[in-house]
C-alpha cells in the first residue's frame, strides 16, 4: 500500500472510529458523575484526608477574610477619627463660612467639611456639658447674660476630614494663601493639623500596616492552602496512577479518565465547604462577644451572618471548595494523562 492510499484508508477508518454523538457525551457525563461518586465512597480514607485538608484550608481562608474585613474596618474607623479643625474669628457669619467651605471643598483630598458659627459652637458646648447643671445654670442665667459673652468670644470652626492624611500640603496652602481664609482665620489659635501632626502620622501608619498586613496575610494563606490541597490531591492521584495507565490502555478518553477524579475532588470541596461554613459560623458566634468587649468592630461580619446573606456565604464556601478541588485535581492528573506510565 502506498503512502497516500494508506493515509486515505486511515482517515476513513478513523472517521468511523471517532463518531462521537451527543447521546454518547451525555452518557459519558452521567458515568463520570457516577464513578466519581462511587470512587469517593470506595476511597474513603483518601477522600476523608482530602476533605479535612480542604476544610482546614477553607476555615483558614475564612478567618483570614474576616480578619482582613475587621482590620479594614478598624483602619477606616481610625482614619475617620482624624480631623483638621480651623478656627475663625468670633462672629464669622454663616454666609462667610459657606464661601470658605466652597473654596476648601474644591481640594480633591477633602472628604467632608462641617462648619459651625459661634452660636452653633455655643449650643454644642451646652449640649456637651448638659450633665453639668451648675455650669448650665450659670451660663443660662438671664441676669448675667453669659450667653452673649460666650458667643462673642467663641470661635467659629471648620472641621475637615481628608482622604489622605499624608498629603495635607494643598490644604495648608489654601488656608495660608486664600484671601477669605487669611481674612477670617483667628490668629490666636492654629489649625490642628500642626498640633495633631504626630498623632495623625501614628494613626495613619497603623492603619496602613493593618490594611497591608491583612492583604499580605490573606495572600500568603491562600497560596499555602492551595499548595497543601494540591499536594494532598496529587498524592491521592499518584497512588492511583496505575489505574490511569490501565484506563488509557483500554482506550478511555482523557476526559473520561480525568472526569471521575474531578468529581471526587469537587465532592470533597462541597463537603468541606459545608463543614467549614459550620465551623466558621459557630466559631464566630463564640468569639464575637469577646472581640466586641475589646472594642473591635465586628458589626459588618455579624450583620452578614444574621441576614439572608448567610446562604450566599455558605454557597460561596462550597463553590470555593469545589473550585480549588477541581483546579488542583486537574493540574495533578495532567502529568499522568500525558505520561501514564511515569
Amino acid at each position, binding site marked *: *500500500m502506498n503512502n497516500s492510499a*494508506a*493515509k486515505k*484508508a*486511515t*482517515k476513513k*477508518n*478513523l472517521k468511523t*472510529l*471517532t463518531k*462521537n*454523538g451527543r*447521546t*454518547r457525551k451525555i*452518557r*459519558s457525563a452521567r*458515568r463520570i458523575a457516577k464513578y466519581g461518586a462511587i*470512587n469517593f465512597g*470506595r*476511597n474513603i480514607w483518601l477522600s476523608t484526608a482530602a476533605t479535612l485538608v480542604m476544610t482546614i484550608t477553607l476555615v483558614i481562608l475564612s478567618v483570614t477574610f474576616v480578619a482582613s474585613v475587621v482590620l479594614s474596618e478598624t483602619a477606616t474607623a481610625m482614619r475617620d477619627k482624624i480631623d483638621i479643625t480651623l478656627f475663625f474669628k468670633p462672629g464669622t457669619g454663616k454666609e462667610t463660612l459657606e464661601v470658605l467651605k466652597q473654596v476648601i471643598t474644591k481640594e480633591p483630598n477633602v472628604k467632608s467639611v462641617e462648619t459651625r458659627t459661634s452660636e452653633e459652637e455655643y449650643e454644642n458646648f451646652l449640649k456637651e456639658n448638659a450633665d453639668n447643671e451648675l455650669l448650665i445654670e450659670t451660663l443660662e442665667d438671664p441676669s448675667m447674660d453669659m450667653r452673649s459673652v460666650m458667643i462673642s468670644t467663641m470661635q467659629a470652626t471648620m472641621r475637615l476630614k481628608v482622604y489622605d492624611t499624608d498629603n495635607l500640603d494643598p490644604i495648608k496652602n489654601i488656608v495660608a494663601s486664600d484671601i477669605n481664609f487669611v481674612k477670617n482665620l483667628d490668629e490666636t489659635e492654629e489649625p490642628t493639623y500642626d498640633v495633631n501632626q504626630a498623632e495623625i502620622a501614628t494613626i495613619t501608619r497603623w492603619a496602613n500596616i493593618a490594611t497591608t498586613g491583612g492583604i499580605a496575610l490573606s495572600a500568603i494563606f491562600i497560596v499555602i492552602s492551595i499548595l497543601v490541597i494540591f499536594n494532598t490531591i496529587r498524592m491521592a492521584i499518584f497512588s492511583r496512577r*496505575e*489505574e490511569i*495507565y*490501565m*484506563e*488509557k*490502555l*483500554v*482506550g*478511555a*478518553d*482523557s476526559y*473520561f479518565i480525568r472526569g471521575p477524579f474531578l468529581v471526587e475532588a469537587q465532592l470533597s470541596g462541597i463537603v468541606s465547604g459545608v463543614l467549614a461554613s459550620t465551623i466558621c459560623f459557630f466559631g464566630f458566634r463564640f468569639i464575637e462577644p469577646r472581640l466586641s468587649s475589646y472594642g473591635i468592630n465586628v458589626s459588618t461580619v455579624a450583620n452578614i451572618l444574621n441576614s439572608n446573606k448567610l446562604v450566599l456565604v455558605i454557597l460561596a464556601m462550597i463553590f470555593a471548595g469545589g473550585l480549588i478541588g477541581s483546579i488542583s485535581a486537574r493540574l495533578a492528573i495532567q502529568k499522568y494523562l500525558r505520561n501514564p*506510565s511515569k
Partner: protein
Amino acid sequence: MILLDHVTKIYPGDKKPALDDVTLHIEPNEFVFLIGKSGAGKSTLMKMITKEEDPDSGKIIIGGIDLDYIKRRHIPHYRRRLGVVFQDFKLLPRRTVYENVAFALEIAGMSTREIRHTVPKVLELVGLTEQANKFPSQLSGGQQQRVSIARSVARQPKILIADEPTGNLDKLTSAEIISLLQKINDFGTTVLVTTHEEAIVNNLDKRVITLKNGRIVADQKTHGIYKLDGDPEVIIDNSPKAPGFALKGDQIISSTAKPKTKSSKTATPKKSRVKRKVA
C-alpha cells in the same frame, strides 16, 4: 490485519535497537505466537501495536489504520478497536469484575441496556458469572486474567493481543487461559500472543514468530519442540525437506517429527469459522 514493515526502534540511551528492521504480516483470524527470551523485543512490538511507543523508522498498519497518521486525540479510539491482555492483568482494583468489563463498553459510549445485556454473556464466556460482584483482589490469578480477557473481548475487537498472558499463572491455569484465547480466535478474532513458555507453544499447532535481539529469526508454523530456556539458538532451516525450526545445542528439535507432547493428542483441529459473535 497486522502489518509491520521494516520497523526499527531504539530507546534513548540504548546502543542496540529493541526492534531491528522487523517485518511481519498477520492475516485476519490468525492465531500467532510471538516468542523470544526476555529482552528479545516482544513487549516493544506489543507497545508499538498499542501505540504506546512509536517506531523510529518503518511503518505499522493495524486493521487498515496506518499508525503514522493517528493523532494523539485519536489514540483512545484506535485502542478501543484492540483487545489487550497483560501479564499483570491491569484490572481496575476499585471496580468489581462486572464494572471492569463494563468499563470497556462504557468508554465506547455503549448504552446501559446494551452493557447489561453484553457483560453477563462475556462473563459467562470466561466462566466468571458467579464472581461478577467481587473485586479483583478477591480473585485468583487465573480468574483475574479471565476478567482481563473478558474486558478485552467485550467490545468484540477484530484483534486481540496478549502480552505474556500466562506469565503469572500456574501450568493448569495457563492452559485454561490459552484455551480461552483459542476459543476467542474461533469466533473470528485475530490473536497475537507473546510468551516465553515453550510448553504453551508446543501444545498448539499455530504460527510462531521468534524474536531474538530485536530481529525476527523465525516465522513458521510449529512442527517441533521449542526450548527457550538455557541459551538456545532458534534458527530456521530453509531447506525444502525440513521447513520447520531447529535448535542448536543440546535442545534438539525435529523439523519434521510431531512433538511428543500432549499437544499431539489435543492439537486443535482446524478452526471452524464461526460467525463473529461473543454470545
